[in-house]
């Protein structure tokens, strides 16, 4: 093009698809450019022909009966195929709920409460002391995360919290006593001993286990060590 306009730009110009300022600029420029003027005329002619020939005739659009048939087919298909699977049903329920703010707020509150309750249950479901049978204790594996109450002595958090409140260790309290090899040499309990308070299992309430180098151990003694424990705990 003499004016430097591409055919693509002129193709937009002839259908008023350009911003007003740009269209005005092109209009002024092509007024003095016969090549661009001719290109515009050809584009206008081709556009007119496209619209005239490719326009859908009236009779090409389906009649009322055909359209009613489409509706019937859709309804039948919806009824027979049940298009809403469980995933879409959940998505729809959530979408509709969150469109109503009060429902959304209630949903969030319920979600938080249920999650907290579940987490609480999970916490309770995994007691600090895990037994195999009635008197065999499995070695606690996360005792280092418990409350450290002295050199190598750890108390499970729930038991310690209750002890702080009431001054008494509650049922199912677990206390781990870990000794260094030199300390263990003079300690009859070995380098890793565990005390569990469980009145339903142990006479006197407490059971004592020597887990030195073991993954599980049977109760070593109960009741009789209570005084010793009270003196050292």
């Amino acid at each position, binding site marked *: 093009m003499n004016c430097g306009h591409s*055919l*693509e*730009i002129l*193709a*937009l110009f002839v*259908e008023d*698809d350009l911003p007003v300022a740009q269209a005005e600029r092109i209009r002024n420029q092509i007024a003095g450019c016969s090549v661009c003027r001719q290109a515009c005329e*050809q*584009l206008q*002619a*081709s*556009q007119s*022909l*496209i*619209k005239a*020939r*490719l*326009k*859908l*005739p009236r*009779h*090409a*659009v*389906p009649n009322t009966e*055909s*359209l009613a*048939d*489409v*509706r019937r*087919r*859709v*309804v039948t*298909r*919806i009824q027979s*195929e049940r*298009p*809403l699977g469980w995933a*879409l049903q959940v*998505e*729809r329920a959530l*979408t*509709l709920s969150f*469109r109503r703010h009060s429902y959304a707020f209630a949903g969030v509150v319920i979600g938080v409460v249920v999650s907290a309750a579940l987490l609480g249950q999970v916490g309770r479901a995994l007691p600090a002391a895990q037994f195999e049978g009635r008197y065999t204790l499995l070695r606690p594996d996360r005792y280092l995360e418990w409350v450290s109450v002295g050199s190598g002595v750890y108390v499970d958090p729930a038991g310690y919290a209750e002890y702080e409140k009431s001054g008494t260790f509650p049922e199912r309290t677990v206390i781990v006593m870990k000794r260094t090899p030199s300390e263990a040499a003079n300690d009859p309990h070995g380098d890793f001993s565990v005390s569990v308070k469980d009145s339903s299992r142990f006479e006197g309430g407490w059971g004592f286990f020597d887990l030195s180098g073991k993954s599980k151990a049977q109760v070593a003694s109960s009741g009789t060590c209570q005084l010793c424990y009270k003196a050292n705990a």
Partner: protein
Amino acid sequence: MFMSRVRDAGPSLENAETACLVQQALNGDPAAFECLMLRHERQVVRLAMRFLGTTEDAQDAAQEVFFRAYKYLHRLDLQKPIEPWLMRTTVNVCRNIGRKRQQRLNTFSGSETAAEPATTGSCDPYSGVVEEEERQMLWKALNSLPEKERIAITLRDIEGLPTAEVAAILDSSETTVRSQVSRARVRMKEAIDEMQKGKK
């Protein structure tokens, strides 16, 4: 066109009614969904005919469009008009049908293109023949365009929708649509030039 009318009226009564029907349909009222179909079926079928060429294919496409609309009705933003969403679904369904048809044709005949739309039925036998030839040639030229350009020019020039509405339907920007439309217009002009050279 249909969407322009809706938009001109702003957040019109029609939009409010549509939103109400959508809500009722979502609450499980089948009559409300049928009413939605009744309101929009002509637009859907007409656009499908434009892309697919035959009434039968357009009706099949419309069935699929409304089935999908029912399935995903909850995803519709009720603050916006329903038409661009339905038209977008129509375009997507027609694209799928067109691709499948092309694969079938490639497999069995290898040379045919999409079906041609119904004739205009002119009264003058001679002009009718000429018009029909031109129409068939333009239809072929249109179908030889790249898919995105073909859809853009169909919506913009043949259906006469404003660029903004075409962009909304295609989930694209106005700039992209303008670019596709301009390229398509130039290609169509070149096809027409070829046709006229052939006549001389």
